[in-house]
């Protein structure tokens, strides 16, 4: 491990950065600095504010308050263009690559001075030089769509290097890499560091951060929770900085969980899916949800939760394994059949996944169980009944009322969420699949949704709760499963485990066989 060169002042310093978005303070008086020739990790859970902070550094966002200094000089970035001129470059989680073009063409696009007639040989030579120097093996003529994700990441890095960036920001680079590719990335970073580059490395994976960083800054809920040098950092300290002491949720389970002989509402046996694109494939997932219990699924977003939901709902086929709903083999069921069997679904992104933006709130409400509201064979819809169901569902959930005759896209995200929740939970169902149901809701609304889930449990329904709020999961789950990289890496009753242990599993700190 190289010691960071703290003499000579930081190459980049952010002071007192504050940034607000509607409903949330993403960065709250954050200060952060990077020195030349160091790898500085930004560690934290989803939503901690890491991405926002570096996007401000890259000129993608303007801070509401605070200052940015580059090499001691105060700067204002109005766009990434300005940041790039100050030798700051960023590799986003969503690559800015064009799959149909070759490696060389993708790099050429971002070169600051490109001649009108392309000289591919010259660019290829520069690519090869950087390739050898830093270990970024790349074939310039390959079209990007043929490259693995790890290779594409190397192209992104190469773009920054050839454009002259000296401060490299990497946003969750290891999220999409296989373990051996991670090793490769670290050795590249070490070589770059040796040449005086500064690297800001965002991650939520403890072990990796400990493996490659010189300094670590931990963020939590928009603030800097702590900043340590590598020597001072231990897993325990980092975990406690990351998660803090969560106050227990105000809503708690009451009554014992159902006995194991109870009929399961949902069973997944050794379910796997095929990998496609950037999605995380499921690998041998075993999961059981019984009636009258809440099974929570913890995990950092992107570790297979979406795929899990899609498989349960019948939108994605499993390549292996079986799925049983209420004891029947539902492996090949269509989404309509799954819904009809009594499965309600609260999606991650309600407007995109479960609602028609141009239709009114009332119409969207009716979509949940159209046939129930149809009269005379479907010729007429009973809108007063729909209205009544909506109002009563909302009031049962103790959610504020919604205007019913406006297009749903005119409502705020939280309101859209509430409509979908009201619609799904007012159906007669045996299984509720809920994705981040309280995300974006204010505390009162969130608690009422939680109360509903508890009530559903008491009414004998099964609930599959996928959430990133560990406190919520701990207080609401009968059993808690942890997902990492498409596998269930642990399953416990909350009483038998601790926040730290789950946090470890979520971040891959303990490699599970």
């Amino acid at each position, binding site marked *: 491990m190289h010691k960071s060169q703290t003499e000579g002042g930081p190459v980049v310093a952010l002071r007192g950065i504050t940034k607000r978005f509607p409903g949330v303070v993403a960065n709250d008086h954050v200060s952060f600095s990077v020195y030349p020739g160091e790898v500085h990790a930004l560690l934290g859970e989803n939503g901690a504010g890491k991405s926002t902070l570096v996007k401000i550094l890259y000129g993608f966002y303007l801070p509401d308050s605070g200052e940015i200094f580059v090499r001691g000089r105060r700067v204002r970035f109005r766009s*990434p*263009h300005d940041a790039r001129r100050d030798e700051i470059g960023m590799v986003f989680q969503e690559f*800015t*690559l*064009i*799959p*149909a*073009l070759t490696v060389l*063409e993708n790099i*050429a*696009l*971002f070169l600051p001075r*490109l*001649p*009108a*007639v*392309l000289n591919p040989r010259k660019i290829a030579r520069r690519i090869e030089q950087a390739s050898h120097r830093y270990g970024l093996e790349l074939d310039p003529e390959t079209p990007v769509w043929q490259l693995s994700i790890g290779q594409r990441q190397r192209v992104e890095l190469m773009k920054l290097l050839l454009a002259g960036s000296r401060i490299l920001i990497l946003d969750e680079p290891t999220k999409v890499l296989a373990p051996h590719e991670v090793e490769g990335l670290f050795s590249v970073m070490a070589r770059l560091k040796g040449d005086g580059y500064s690297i800001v490395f965002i991650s939520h994976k403890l072990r990796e951060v400990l493996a490659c960083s010189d300094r670590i800054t931990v963020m939590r809920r928009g603030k800097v929770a702590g900043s340590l040098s590598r020597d001072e950092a231990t897993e325990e300290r980092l975990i406690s900085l990351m998660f803090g002491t969560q106050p227990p949720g105000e809503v708690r389970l009451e009554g014992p969980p159902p006995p194991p002989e109870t009929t399961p509402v949902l069973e997944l046996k050794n379910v796997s899916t095929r990998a496609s694109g950037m999605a995380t494939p499921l690998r041998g997932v075993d999961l059981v949800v019984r009636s009258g219990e809440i099974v929570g699924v913890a995990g950092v977003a992107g570790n297979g939760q979406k795929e899990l939901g899609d498989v349960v709902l019948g939108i994605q086929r499993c390549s292996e394994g079986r799925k049983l709903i209420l004891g029947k083999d539902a492996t090949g069921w269509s989404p309509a059949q799954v819904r009809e069997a009594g499965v309600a679904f609260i999606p991650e992104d309600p407007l995109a996944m479960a609602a028609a933006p141009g239709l009114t709130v009332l119409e969207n409400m009716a979509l949940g169980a159209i046939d129930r509201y149809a009269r005379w064979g479907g010729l007429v819809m009973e809108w007063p009944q729909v209205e009544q169901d909506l109002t009563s569902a909302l009031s049962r959930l103790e959610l504020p009322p919604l205007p019913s005759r406006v297009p749903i896209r005119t409502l705020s995200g939280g309101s859209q969420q509430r409509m979908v929740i009201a619609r799904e939970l007012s159906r007669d169902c045996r299984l509720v699949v809920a994705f981040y149901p309280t995300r974006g809701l204010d505390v009162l609304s969130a608690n009422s949704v939680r109360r509903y889930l508890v009530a559903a449990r008491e009414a004998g329904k099964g609930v599959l709760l996928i959430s990133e709020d560990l406190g919520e999961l701990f207080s609401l789950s009968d059993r808690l499963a942890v997902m990492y990289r498409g596998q269930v890496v642990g399953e416990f009753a909350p009483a038998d485990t601790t926040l730290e242990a789950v946090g470890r599993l979520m971040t891959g700190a303990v490699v599970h066989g």
Partner: protein
Amino acid sequence: MSWDWLTWLTSGAILYAAPLLYPALGEVIEQRAGIVNLGLEGLMLVGAALAFAVTAETGSPWFGVLAAALAGGVMNLGFGYLVISRRAPQLASGLALMFLGFGLSAMLGKGYINALIRGLPRYQLPGWGAILFNYDLLVYLLFPLALGLWWVLFRTRWGLRLRAVGEDPITAFAAGISPAWVRYQAVFLAGLLAGIGGAHLSVGVTLTWSEGMTAGRGFIAIALVIFSRWHPLRAIVGALLFGGAVVFQLQLQARGVGISPFFLDMLPYVLTILVLLIWGRAGRQAAPASLGRVYYGTE
């Protein structure tokens, strides 16, 4: 099948391919920038009518071609304004351009329907070429044009930026390119070429004008673009195929073959649909990425 007939068929195919290839090449440029233009038919009609009228008035077919090219470019800029600056849906805007072309061409050509004009002068290639190659300059220009277009698309900065915009305008924007500006340029060039294509039909091939004479070539050109997978050189093959089909069925009609001329006339359209059917799926993979939203989903 005599050698004569074969050469006659080939030379006819080449001649009839030209009015298809010009708009197809233009549309390759446009679609590579991410824009689908259903109004090519309208542009071609205006090109045909205007070229014919100007030729009849001035006696020079080259003035006619020039006028057609400019008119096509300018008209297409109007379409470009709709889809680029106003973000209007591309398919509907193209149809508006088509209607405009129907009407404008009919008005332009009205007074000239029976006029006699001197068409584009033809030149023979010396030697063996004299049998096969007896065309006007616009036909001879096609191959170098396609070649040049290929070179520009794949070997210049301008072409790279154009392709980037057509694939992913957001990434292109991140690279400092202005997708709107690039698209306007593409639209103008496509209009120029479509106008020339129409002009060639009226002052190079048929030497007549009648309402609606392009008979759907503008849409066939779009199918050609898909068939050629957005590659200028492959478009030549497709155009020859269609040109050949048109000539073939004209031949059959002239010979009084038992098949009704109506069914023979259907040939190009049915062929187009078949081509789209067969190559459509594969085409989706090869298409500039941002076109997918235009063809199949939320634009």
